[in-house]
């Protein structure tokens, strides 16, 4: 009986193994097809890296556990397997009865049992499983470049966003835009970065361009303000320094007019620039108000204005460095920052050469041709010492465009007469253009009406023949 029990256990174990293997292959097939599809979608649709996709293989665990659990549930009971062995070995129910009653003498009549053979027709299942495994391998191994849809995915705008972010930060630091405005721009940039898609890049680029345009507009406005202020500061600083340098050499009326002009200019600057106001001491401000600036105060004022001008120049340089302003603006700023102090002093000492203070400043400070309604002349400064002689002056020869020649080259023959044109007496003189009389098509000779003043020459030509 012990041998038969061992046989029964072995046989049951074989059935269990076969059932587990069978269900495992089925579940593995399903898992492999699902995994293959997921890998394909992930790689084609989202260009997910393969190293990350390896985690998907963990999804096999539930399938494995389910297969084992379901198979174990289906393993036949000992009693049914005993019934099977009883039937196959023709025991006539004796083996089955052994489970319920004591067989006594009959125990010995049960000979050694033979376990039947288990067969599993696995051909179809194995073929489908192989296909599924191949599908997974192919979907995993195929290089990313063959995943065509993936090539059009995420739009790389990182560099642009970074550059724009730096520009916004510069504007924020220079207090050109408020912190709230800067935050708003940065939020928009973050959104763009997240939503940037290769399927529809136009929207993204348009949005970036829009922000970029706004930022540049703010920067340009700031640059123009800086240029304007630099010019004003240069003029005021130059005048202050000229007055300081000239001192007593300047006539009192010119000095008073110049100080009044300087005070007016400083007031205008102070009204536009709070920073400048903070940098001047109260006495100096008071003196400016009263138009009573001492020599020492003129020096202080000139230094303060120069310092502020340098700050503006440095700010503009920062904008240029951040790509927010043109270099020509920086150069213009440098030009506007120059002032011929000696020239101005000479003007002031010589009673301004009968010029008003504003004109003198326009000549000595900044670049010419940048006048406006409230400051100097709009034309360029024209200064000369003595008139030039016309003798021996040679003008450079210049070839003018050959308009008539080009017109001839572009002309085309539209007809040739085979016989001499007839001269009709009493023909009315031509009015309007000659081509107006031409007839189009029909193979007729082109007729040209000869003006009366040419008739004699034409007549003579034919007579010679």
């Amino acid at each position, binding site marked *: 009986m012990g041998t038969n029990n061992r046989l029964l256990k072995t046989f049951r174990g074989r059935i269990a193994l076969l059932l587990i293997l069978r269900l495992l292959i089925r579940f593995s097939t399903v898992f492999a097809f699902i995994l293959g599809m997921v890998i394909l979608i992930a790689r084609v649709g989202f260009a997910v890296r393969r190293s990350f996709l390896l985690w998907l293989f963990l999804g096999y665990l539930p399938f494995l556990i389910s297969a084992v659990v379901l198979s174990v549930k289906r393993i036949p009971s000992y009693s049914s397997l005993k019934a099977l062995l009883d039937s196959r070995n023709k025991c006539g*129910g004796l083996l089955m009865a052994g*489970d319920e009653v004591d067989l*006594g003498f*009959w125990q010995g009549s049960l000979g050694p049992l033979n376990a039947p053979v288990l067969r599993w027709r696995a051909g179809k299942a194995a073929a489908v499983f192989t296909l599924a495994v191949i599908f997974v391998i192919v979907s995993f191994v195929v290089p990313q470049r063959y995943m065509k849809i993936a090539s059009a995915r995420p739009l790389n705008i990182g560099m642009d966003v970074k550059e724009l972010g730096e520009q916004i930060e510069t504007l924020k630091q220079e207090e050109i835009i408020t912190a709230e405005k800067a935050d708003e721009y940065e939020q928009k940039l973050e959104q763009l970065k997240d939503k940037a898609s290769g399927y529809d890049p136009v929207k993204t680029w348009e949005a970036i361009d829009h922000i970029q345009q706004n930022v540049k507009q703010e920067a340009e406005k700031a640059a123009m303000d800086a240029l304007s202020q630099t010019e004003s500061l240069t003029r005021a600083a130059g005048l202050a320094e000229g007055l300081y340098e000239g001192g007593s050499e300047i006539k009192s009326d010119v000095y008073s007019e110049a100080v009044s002009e300087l005070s007016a200019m400083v007031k205008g600057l102070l009204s536009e620039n709070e920073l400048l106001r903070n940098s001047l001491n109260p006495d100096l401000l008071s003196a400016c108000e009263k138009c009573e600036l001492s020599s020492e105060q003129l020096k202080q004022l000139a230094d303060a204005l120069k310092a502020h001008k340098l700050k503006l120049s440095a700010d503009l340089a920062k904008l240029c460095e951040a790509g927010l302003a043109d270099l020509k603006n920086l150069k213009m700023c440098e030009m506007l920052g120059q002032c011929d102090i000696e020239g101005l002093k000479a003007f002031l000492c010589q009673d301004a050469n009968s010029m008003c203070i504003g004109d003198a400043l326009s000549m000595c400070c900044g670049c010419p041709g940048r006048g406006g309604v409230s400051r100097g002349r709009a034309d360029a400064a024209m200064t000369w010492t003595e008139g030039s002689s016309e003798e021996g002056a040679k003008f450079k020869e210049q070839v003018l465009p050959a308009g008539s020649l080009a017109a001839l080259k572009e002309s085309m023959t539209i007809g040739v007469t085979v016989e001499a044109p007839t001269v009709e007496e009493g023909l009315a003189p031509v009015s309007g253009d000659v081509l107006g009389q031409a007839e189009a098509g029909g193979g007729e000779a082109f007729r040209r009406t000869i003006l009366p003043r040419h008739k004699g020459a034409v007549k003579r030509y034919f007579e010679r023949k």
Partner: protein
Amino acid sequence: MAKKDRLDEVLKPEQLKTAAGLAKRMLEQLDNILLGRPQLHQMVLVGILSQGHILLEGVPGVGKTALVKVLGQLMNLEFKRVQFTPDLMPGDILGTHILQEDESGKRQMYFQPGPVFTNILLADEINRASPKTQSALLEAMQERSVTLLGETRSLPEPFFVLASQNPIELEGTYPLPEAQLDRFLFKLNVAAADVDVMDSIISTRRRGEPPMPNWSIGREELGVLFDVMGKIFLPKPVSRYISRLVAATVPKTAEATEMVNNYISYGASPRAAIAIAEAARGCALIASRPTVGFEDVRAVTTAVLNHRIILNYKARFDGIDSFAVIDDLLSALDETGVNLPADVEITERMNE
């Protein structure tokens, strides 16, 4: 003492040997007296051992009545024959009360027992009697008693009804009702004898008369047989198989086959399961086995079920009979209940 449903031990070999010897000897006698039908004889013996009633169906002249007569002689039991006719009345079978005058001149109703009061009743051509008369046997066959005018009388032990019917003559016949059919343990077809058998009959028997049995079983020995029958062990897997088999004959049940669903109107009753279990025990006894095996069940299933399942009209149109449906059921139903997937099969180990 009530018979135990289940046994604590299997039969002792010597007990089984005696009973199996008697059964085999009876079978030998039958085979010797009636030539050429060993399988039929075995089934009849199984029916007798199971104390069941048997319906023999066959054309006239195939030896139905002879078989029953020999059985009566062989078992040394009282035997009566009733020829069923359309005008046969229940009283002609069960008996009747008649008015008689006793010695004192007093008139009294006396019961005159009918031919049913016997051990073996041959109901010849049972389908010729009217349903009323056929139904008279219902109580006798099931309860082994007869109730007349409120008085129930037991029939002698043992009591067997061995009925015969002719399947080809339909005119003037009354097919047995389902309730009546269900009371027969077996319905056995008695086929015509083949050439060799007929040659033997003609050449060895004068006028075809079967010889008298040279041995008969006594009442005590018959009691031993019945006692041993009750001790044949029915293992649980086998009883489960019988139950599944009978349940599967009912359409639209879990294990009903496509053929059952298509061709059967009504399946077999639990009485069929009891009959199979009993008959399988008889088979095991004849095979000298103390336990019932699946092969015993398969051997008796057709005989037990063929008259208990009711085919529908579609089956008749398609020419399907109950034997085809039962064969299909036996081949489709896995006896062991192992229930492996369809692509996994268990085959015999090839002998080297």
